[in-house]
């Protein structure tokens, strides 16, 4: 039986410069932050991010890891806009590939189903078609003959998601309100499909921990590696295990005010091992 457990640093060792990486979660909710922190400690660079973005995108932009962002928003929920992402955009430091939230869903679904595109009305009449040069149109082959947007398959080199419970083989459940699009992120990736989980339990305990089979939405054929890390999503929320750490998030947002503030935040919270980070958070 395949034991897929590994550390965050072992995940990052399998990633490469220039990869297109999908990140699960939504805004400042259930983000795989411990793996993001490991990327920040590494020398990875020139990444293209695909995300319903939050602090994951902001942190990677602030640390200069990002070449391109494919996104529909980058929000911290209780803080409407991620300030680090704003700084990166306003400095022209990153390439911007805009999407509609639903167009993103279709692109991930197309990649997961291994078709080149899915037709949609989404984007018609908007500036998405002007600003996202990947997007093309398709003419219906049926009697209507109308023109639709062909949502392109968003094939990923790697996918990173945080789930609530997992077993060592990669089956996993979400215990918060919404799975978001984590299953599609994992299915849209050709390989390097990694999840972190609050707790790794024996397979026999998965159902009991989830409360219902309807919450066990990731299966082991979708996952190459499992990181067990309580608090991995900090400072984003991961209910019912923990709420968002709003005070910490404000501190993170404040670190976008100047390069000095970012340097200070970085040395206090990011230039340290995940164990030390979790210890410092617990001691706050």
């Amino acid at each position: 039986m395949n034991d897929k457990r590994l550390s965050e640093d072992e995940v990052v060792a399998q990633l490469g410069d220039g990869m297109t990486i999908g990140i699960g979660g939504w805004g400042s909710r259930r983000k795989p932050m411990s793996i993001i922190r490991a990327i920040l400690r590494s020398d990875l660079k020139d990444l293209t991010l695909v995300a319903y973005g939050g602090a994951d995108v902001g942190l990677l932009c602030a640390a200069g890891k990002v070449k391109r962002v494919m996104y529909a928003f980058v929000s911290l929920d209780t803080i409407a806009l991620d300030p680090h992402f704003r700084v990166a955009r306003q400095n022209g430091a990153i390439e911007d590939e805009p999407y509609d939230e639903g167009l993103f869903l279709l692109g991930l679904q197309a990649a997961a189903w291994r078709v080149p595109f899915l037709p949609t009305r989404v984007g018609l009449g908007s500036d998405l078609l002007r600003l996202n040069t990947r997007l093309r149109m398709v003419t219906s082959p049926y009697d209507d003959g109308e023109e639709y947007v062909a949502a392109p398959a968003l094939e990923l080199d790697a996918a990173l998601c945080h789930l609530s419970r997992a077993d060592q083989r990669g089956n996993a459940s979400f215990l918060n309100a919404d799975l978001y699009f984590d299953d599609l992120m994992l299915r849209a990736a050709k390989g390097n499909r990694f999840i972190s989980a609050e707790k790794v339990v024996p397979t026999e305990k998965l159902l009991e921990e989830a409360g219902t089979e309807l919450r066990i939405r990731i299966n082991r054929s979708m996952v190459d590696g499992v990181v067990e890390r309580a608090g991995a999503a900090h400072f984003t929320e991961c209910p019912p295990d923990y709420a968002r750490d709003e005070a910490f998030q404000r501190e993170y947002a404040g670190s976008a005010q100047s390069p000095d503030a970012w340097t200070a935040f970085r040395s206090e919270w990011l230039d340290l091992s995940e164990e030390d980070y979790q210890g410092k958070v617990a001691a706050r």
Partner: protein
Amino acid sequence: MSDAVTRAEICVTAIAECFRGDGELLANPIGTIPMIGGRLARASFEHDLLTTDGEALLIANDEAFAWPNGKVVEYYNSYRSMFDVVWAGRRHVIMGASQIDRYGNQNLASIGPDYSKPKAQLLGFRGAPGNTVNNKTSYWIPNHGPRVFVEKVDVVTGVGWDSAAAAGPAATKYFELRHVVTNLCVIDYETDDHRMRLRSVHPGVTVDEVVAATGFELVVPENVPESRTPSDDELKLIREVIDPKALREKELPS
């Protein structure tokens, strides 16, 4: 009701009016005053509307923000199933706008002429392109001024009438912009080419004030009525049931 009706309560009522006639649609107002207005529409006159709890449930409660006696759950509505609702046209959304032009083109994404290096990065496209060509859309603008109501938006995120027409039949088939409710007035598009028209001014606001606060030429009919005030029953619903903590007054102080 002895207390004077506030501007926020006028706006809540105007938002509720956006949903009149919608029937069994998901009323999905984004923002504090819109959330209250959607609840008011259902409680007062549009009883078949559906509403969310702000996350992954559709609930039948009249309360907008807190449910001390529990939620009356009608449906599990994950983000993914929200797209099923939207793309089937079973929703009327109320969005905000950082910029909006006379045909209702909306900008949520960024400000400035160079998209690759904007003066101000804003939200991004969010769901605006898909929303506008698939379901009914209205707007809530709590800060009516010439920087919001502009000749031309820097980025078209939400599609306006002219952009939809230019994009062809797949874009116009299910397209409908309904109203724009602001802190000063209500606007519709009931003109021959769907340009914005002043529909009503809120009590205490003059037509001249609205015209001065709008950065393009608004169609102004000869007689502009006042926006309606809530009935006594509606006021009681707003103040005692839907929004007892008066969050509406924080979003739009009198």
